[in-house]
């Protein structure tokens, strides 16, 4: 099933715009289609293809009464009925004195998103073939689990102020966990195009880690120097993005940045940007209100530099929106969804070589927030946690729980890796990060494996 294409998606959106009696109407169309081939115990055990398309209509009546409704359907009659429902909701809602209107058309939308035809059209045999090929090359006596995913995303937005925006992108991901008995190893790759994934290398990396993870020894919880591999580092970057760069969260006092904008919050080695227009991310050139995406530097060489704004917050602050709006009205407000911790100059291998005594962490598991204001999160290590002495991995250790302030960890960054990897969950948004060498990282307890 091929892409709808910009024209057809905008036609779907425009079906909503004629809603009678409305002051403003906006229709956001989101289509995602793709396949995912899952394997476990070295056989494909679940495999699926799914196509979803939803239209969210926002209608404003009486100047500032706002209603929304969403339907998963593409036919114009269903979209018009949904617009009618949104109008009905709007008429029931109390006035919103802070309603800022809707954005108008942009002079131009930035180039963003890499739509790769081969990825969009990848069939189940292609994914299964990649999986089978990797499984065949694994060493004897191990079992593997993981997934190979290909997906296509199309987004369009139209409103009665003249916005007509449409974009498309693709994404591909391959993840593999290898179980070598007393140890496991893992690797994952995510890129806009399937052809850019080196699945064989991912399989080899996971297998090597699994073999090296066997017979882990117990390590007492404590504070250790660490090297976090890119996937673990990207988890911290994503959490930081959720915890307070949105202007609404900042205004409501539920941001760790309150009182810290313009101040040093971490090491000068750390610069974090949000950039949906980067060639190596998965995104489109406008946000969910139809505002062009901008590259925003959130942390500039360790200094808290900027917030991100949706249309409402930008209007309130008297600034230009940055293109980070979620479907409005949003309880959350704006969010940075294409984060990147910029790479440094130290090759990843040298980060470990520079570690006198400490831990090399492959991956985190089940992270969660402990304290928003000091950015403390907790989570486990898994699938490759190693003890390093004099720059050499000397063996595996049992997995540890960390409970650590992200800002404190980023303040203790000693070196930043030169190579980055992208992590992206199913849906929209991604984070790219390099490996990080951190002088102090707090592990609060240990597990049994």
């Amino acid at each position: 099933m091929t892409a709808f294409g910009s024209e057809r998606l905008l036609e779907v959106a425009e079906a909503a715009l004629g809603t009678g009696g409305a002051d403003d109407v906006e229709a956001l169309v989101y289509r995602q289609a793709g396949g995912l081939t899952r394997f476990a115990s070295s056989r494909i055990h679940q495999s699926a293809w799914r196509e979803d398309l939803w239209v969210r209509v926002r209608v404003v009546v009486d100047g500032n009464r706002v209603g929304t409704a969403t339907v998963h359907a593409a036919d114009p009659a269903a979209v018009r009925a949904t617009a009618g429902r949104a109008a009905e909701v709007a008429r029931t809602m109390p006035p919103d004195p802070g309603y800022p209107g809707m954005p108008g058309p942009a002079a131009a939308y930035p180039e963003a998103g890499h739509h790769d035809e081969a990825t969009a059209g990848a069939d189940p045999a292609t994914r299964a073939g990649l999986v089978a090929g990797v499984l065949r090359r694994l060493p004897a006596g191990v079992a593997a689990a993981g997934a190979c995913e290909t997906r296509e995303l199309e987004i369009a937005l139209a409103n009665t102020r003249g916005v007509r925006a449409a974009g498309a992108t693709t994404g591909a991901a391959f993840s593999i966990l290898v179980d070598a008995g007393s140890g496991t190893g893992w690797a994952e790759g995510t890129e806009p195009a399937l052809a850019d994934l080196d699945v064989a290398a991912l399989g080899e990396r996971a297998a090597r880690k699994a073999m090296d993870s066997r017979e882990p020894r117990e390590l007492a919880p404590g504070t250790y120097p660490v090297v976090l591999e890119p996937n673990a580092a990207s988890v911290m970057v994503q959490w930081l993005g959720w915890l307070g760069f949105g202007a609404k969260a900042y205004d409501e006092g539920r941001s760790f940045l309150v009182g810290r904008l313009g101040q040093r919050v971490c090491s000068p080695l750390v610069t974090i940007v949000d950039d949906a227009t980067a060639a190596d991310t998965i995104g489109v050139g406008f946000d969910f209100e139809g505002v062009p995406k901008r590259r925003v530097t959130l942390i500039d060489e360790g200094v808290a530099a900027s917030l991100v704004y949706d249309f409402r917050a930008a209007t309130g602050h008297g600034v230009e929106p940055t293109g980070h709006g979620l479907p409005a009205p949003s309880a959350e407000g704006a969010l940075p969804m294409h984060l990147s911790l910029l790479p440094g100059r130290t090759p990843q291998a040298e980060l470990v070589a520079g570690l006198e005594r400490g831990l090399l962490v492959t991956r985190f598991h089940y992270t969660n927030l402990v304290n928003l204001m000091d950015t403390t999160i907790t989570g486990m290590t898994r699938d490759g946690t190693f003890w390093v002495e004099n720059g050499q991995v000397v063996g595996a250790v049992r997995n540890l729980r960390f409970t650590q302030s992200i800002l404190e960890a980023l303040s203790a960054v000693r070196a930043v890796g030169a190579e980055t990897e992208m992590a992206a969950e199913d849906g929209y948004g991604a984070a790219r990060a390099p490996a990080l060498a951190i002088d102090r990282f707090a592990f609060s307890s240990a597990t049994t494996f």
Partner: protein
Amino acid sequence: MEPEELTELALAAAVAAGAGYADVRWVREETEGLTVVDGRVDDLEAEESSGLGVRVLVDGRWGFAASAVLDPARARDLAGRAVEVARASAAAGGEPVRLAPAEPAVASWATPVGRDPFAVPLAERVDLLLAASDAQRSVAGVAHAKATVDLWRRRTVLWSTEGARIDQTVTQTGAGIEATAVGDGDLQHRSWPNSFRGQFQAGGWEVVEAADLVGNAPRVAAEAVQLLAAPVLPERVTTVILDGQQLSLQVHESVGHPLELDRILGMEAAYAGTSFVGPDDLGRLRYGSPAMSVTADATTPGGLGTFAFDDEGVPAQRSPLVADGVVAGFLTSRETTTDGAASGGAMRADGWGAMPLIRMTNVHLEPGQGSLDELVADTADGVLLSVNRSWSIDDRRVNFQFGVEAAWEIRGGRLGRLYRNATYDGRTTELWGSLDAVCGPGEWVVWGVPNCGKGQPYQNARVGHGAAPARFRDVHVGGVGR
């Protein structure tokens, strides 16, 4: 086109394309979420999602295809795609899937609903939440006052090549308040009846009314303000009483998930993880003290995991998971059950677009006796931990750490000082081994967890946990907050 017509068409197309077994689910899901913050409607999300999901077995390999685009041509196309997916899955080899027998059901069922929540006028819902927000804001020191109502309904038409013809509608409702106090670089929440948008149960508007959001708002707001000034819970090893809200999540993470048979068999290894429990631990592994009995029950009134049939068409069941502290059962499916046993009826899909997976239904800690007041009075020294704020557990479900909204010191059988930023941590069988008392049926409530994640692509599930406050000895608390 009627759902039954689309379903029949897709089923026939799947067989014609070579499926040895097929089931087709037509699903319509309606949701409405209303959020009021500080006397203003912050968000209203109303969504309707319909689609068709076709699952097939071809030579013992699963294939699945689903779409929100509903027309006869797409229904036939989905069947063909599902078969294509299944055929491709043979590439990696391995043992073919065999399904345990199940009697095909022909039935229809719906959640008993007192007052249809979707029929409650929006203005009435808004007025209630404005009143609940205002009642919180009447307390000095409250920075933000949130009130929420969430409605959810799913109709599933499930047909299979074995003859299942099921039409099932589940309705669930949630409501809650959350007061926030901010100051001195800290932020504290207090929620009612539970955190993360409140209490969710199967049923209608009566769930909202039972929560009495307005009546509880001043107390909840006052506690949020008190938390801001409270000391951090000191680190120590002590006796802990978990309230029902927190205990329900403890059961969820450290009992429900580890006893899902797909995790035990490694089918979720790469993402959600596996389990410290092995297939051979049935009837052998001591999971907890004799005070611990846990039941999976998809028939419990009010539970988010309550239905008549799972998404394989297997009837809802009640069965023991842990009996007097020993593993007595697993959550199972037709594919995973062995030795001629029937499925336990725990296959659930996140709507039309997802393959069913083994999910919790309602996983209850069975009640003991007495009230919370009596349990506190019987405790010389310890802490009462109330309402979840943070959770994390390792990928085999051994090492956990939870944070709660509030902690009260217990000294000499009485509640004392309030503490903030409280956490506790431990290992699963050690914690459950230290369980020495569970409150009685009068304190037992079926709590809803509407956001359980698992699977690739990610699937959400709505599950229930009956729990009454319970006491654990020698638990490590504090030490990670500030």
